[in-house]
Structure formats: structure tokens, C-alpha cells
């Protein structure tokens, strides 16, 4: 067999990030979070807990919301990654701005990316956007400032805006 990764020897990782293809040498088990923040200088994605509990580091991997602190670089090989810097998130960002859906801001990028994943899922499955649905969809995104009311208002605001388009 062909051992793709020998030792902690770096791999050549090719990923598409916000529509741009990027190729870099990284250790195979480097966290996608560190690849994004430190290697690609995309510091919009935040590290909250670093152990898969808080949702701050959520990014889209091939359209699915995943925690970038739990994804090793080798498993992101060839993936299409969307981070909070993506221009496809502008309308959701505007909604968070309009509703004041941020306090300290650490959870905000994860909230915005998770909202994108949920709205896409609702559209794909034909499910309607409800407050209850939004609560469940964002259950994995913790806000230490506990400003959930305005965050949820922003999610519903974003959904309404997209529907109106």
C-alpha cells in the first residue's frame, strides 16, 4: 500500500477556502482551525473551548457545519471550506448587525456559519424556519454573554431577508 503520510511528516493539503483553492504543507493531524487561523491568516474563525463543546470554531466542510477544532488537516483534503470571511454570508452578517446579535463577539462567527448551514438545510429539505427550529439548529453554539435573544432574532431576520429575495 501507499502510505500517504509517513511520520509527522507534513502533507500537501489542497483545500478550497471561500472559493479560492489553497495548497500548503501541514502536519497531517494539525487542526483545521489552526490551518485557517495561523497558516492562512483567516482569523475570523475563533477558538472557544478547543474541545468540541462550544461551536465558536464552526466552519462549513462540503456544506456541513463542523467544528474546525476537531477536524484534522488530513481529513479536510480536497474539501470545500466556508468560513465567516466568505462573501456568501453577508446577508446573515447584516442581520446580526441589524439586530445587535453580538456582544463580545467570540461566538459570532460560529453563530453566523451555523445559521448558513441551517438555512441551506431548511431550503434543501423544504422545512419552514421557526424559532424552535432555530434554537435547535444553534444548540451547539454557546454564547458566554448569554445574548441568545438577539442572536435568535438575527437568525430569523436573516431567514426573512433571504425569503424576500
Amino acid at each position, binding site marked *: 500500500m501507499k502510505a500517504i*503520510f*509517513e511520520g509527522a511528516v507534513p502533507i500537501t493539503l489542497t483545500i478550497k477556502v471561500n472559493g479560492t483553492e489553497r495548497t500548503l504543507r501541514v502536519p497531517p*493531524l494539525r487542526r483545521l482551525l489552526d490551518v485557517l487561523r495561523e497558516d492562512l491568516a483567516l482569523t475570523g474563525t475563533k477558538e472557544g473551548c478547543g474541545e*468540541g463543546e462550544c*461551536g465558536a470554531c464552526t466552519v462549513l466542510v462540503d456544506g456541513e457545519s*463542523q*467544528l474546525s477544532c476537531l477536524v*484534522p488537516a488530513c481529513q479536510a483534503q480536497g474539501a470545500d471550506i466556508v468560513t465567516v470571511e466568505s462573501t456568501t454570508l453577508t446577508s446573515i452578517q447584516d442581520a446580526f448587525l441589524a439586530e445587535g446579535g453580538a456582544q463580545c463577539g467570540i461566538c459570532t462567527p460560529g453563530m453566523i456559519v451555523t445559521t448558513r448551514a441551517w438555512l441551506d438545510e431548511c431550503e434543501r429539505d423544504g422545512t419552514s424556519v421557526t424559532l424552535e427550529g432555530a434554537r435547535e439548529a444553534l444548540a*451547539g453554539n454557546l454564547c458566554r454573554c448569554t445574548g441568545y435573544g438577539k442572536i435568535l432574532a438575527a437568525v430569523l431576520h436573516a431567514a426573512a431577508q433571504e425569503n424576500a429575495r
Partner: protein
Amino acid sequence: MKVVSARTLDEALLALRDAGPDSRVLAGGTDLMVEMESGRTQPDFVVDVWKVDALRGIRATPLGIEIGALTTCAELERSAEASVHADILVEAARWVGAAQIKHRATVGGNLGTASPAADLNPALFALGARVKLVSLRGEREIAVEAFVKGYRTTDRALDELIASIVIPARSPHERRAFRKVGTRKAQSISKVVLAVCAEVEAGSIRSARAAAGSVADRTILLPTLSNAVAASAHGVRADRVGALSREVVRADARPRDDVRSSAEYRTFALERILARALLDFTRLP
């Protein structure tokens, strides 16, 4: 450290042939990535199987269903086959965590990690599931309760890979329940988790098979329940459920105090959720 990212089952098994005691299989990473990042686990060899498509998918078989080891909790939730034959496993997957975790956490990973607090494993135990293991030496199948041998310890040989989980077809009169008790209603690691399958006729429980998590060093079956039900000539009716649940928990559970709960609370909670689940069975039409 050496890392192999296998793209096919053959590549994974060839890599595992050389695996030593400090090797780890990496699937969705919800446990291992945290363990490695914290330094609690420092493997010298990691076999990443995430891209091995042969380990994915849920398929119906003449005897029930076969669930690929890499099937995620999100995939379980969407599966029509699983919702019929493994409804309590789907229920466990639904409550295991948030969307981000469900997109990564796998059935094989839950079983292979063998955490006593695992949510999917009690459901697998109660369903009478069997685990299919493959290696270059061949294939074997073993009951899940025999596979889990202790605290985060399984019967998997170093060169073996969990290929799939086989779940028998649901029998027509079977009632099932899944209960999870955590700090919050959802999205928390279980203080107590319970899964029960029972045959019920006219308000009487004729046979039962139950398993619990977070009440011992590993997921456990509750054999005292199965034996007591089997020994009663006319089955177990509502009036016996409370006393029987106390007896079962006293005999089978070995809870301890830890960061998430106390032994006393776990005993109390397990008794209550078991009694309630059995009572509900006897009251169903």
C-alpha cells in the same frame, strides 16, 4: 508519530497490520482529537479511516440492518431503515449532541472508544447488536456486550477494524424506550443513559432486554431484569414494576461519584427512568 490516511479498506487493513499498542484508529475525531490536543493520548501511530467509503452506509439485510462503522449520527437520523429497526439508536443519535457533533460522531467510533458515558452503546446492547470486525486475517462477528470489555477497553485486536454493526429485525410486538439524563435537557454528557426493548402482551411484559450507561466502568446490560421477567410465569405487570426496578439497579449497576454526578443520584435516577419506561410499556394499548 506516523499517520496513515487510508482511502480504501485494503489500505486501512494493511496499515493496521503493523499497529502496536500505542496506535489509534481515527474516525470522526470527536473523542481522539480532544484526547490528542490535551496530551492525554499520545499515539505513535494513527490510522485515519474517514475517507474509507466501504465503511459507510446503512443497508437492509434479510435479518435486519447493517450499519457501516463510519455512519454518522446525522446519517442515522435521516435513515428510513434505521428508524424502523433501530429506532432507539436513532433516538440516542438525535440527543447525542449538536448538529456539528452529529456530522462527525460515528457509530463505530462510539463503540470502539467504549466510553462508559457513550449514548449509542446502551441502545446497541438493548437491540442485541453484533459488531463485525475485519483484518487481513479475516472477518469475525461478536455481540456488542462481549466486545466492550472494560473502561474504554474492547476486544478489538490491534490489527482489526470495526467494519459494521449488525442489528436484528424488529419483532412485531416489541416496545422500546431510550432515556437520557444529563445536566441539561439536551447537549450534555449523560449522568445516566438507558435503553430498553421488551415484548409486551395485554399489559404484561413477557421478555425484556435493557442496558445502561454511566452507571459502571462500562456500558452494561441489566441481566437481573431479563431474568426476573423470564422467570415470571405470567410476565411482569404494572404493580411489580417499581420493586423490580429497585432490585435490578441494586443488583446490576455499579455507579460511582465523578465530575458529572454522584453514585447516589445515578442509582436514584436509573431506578426512576427504568420504572417509568417499564410502566409506560404496560400501559400502552
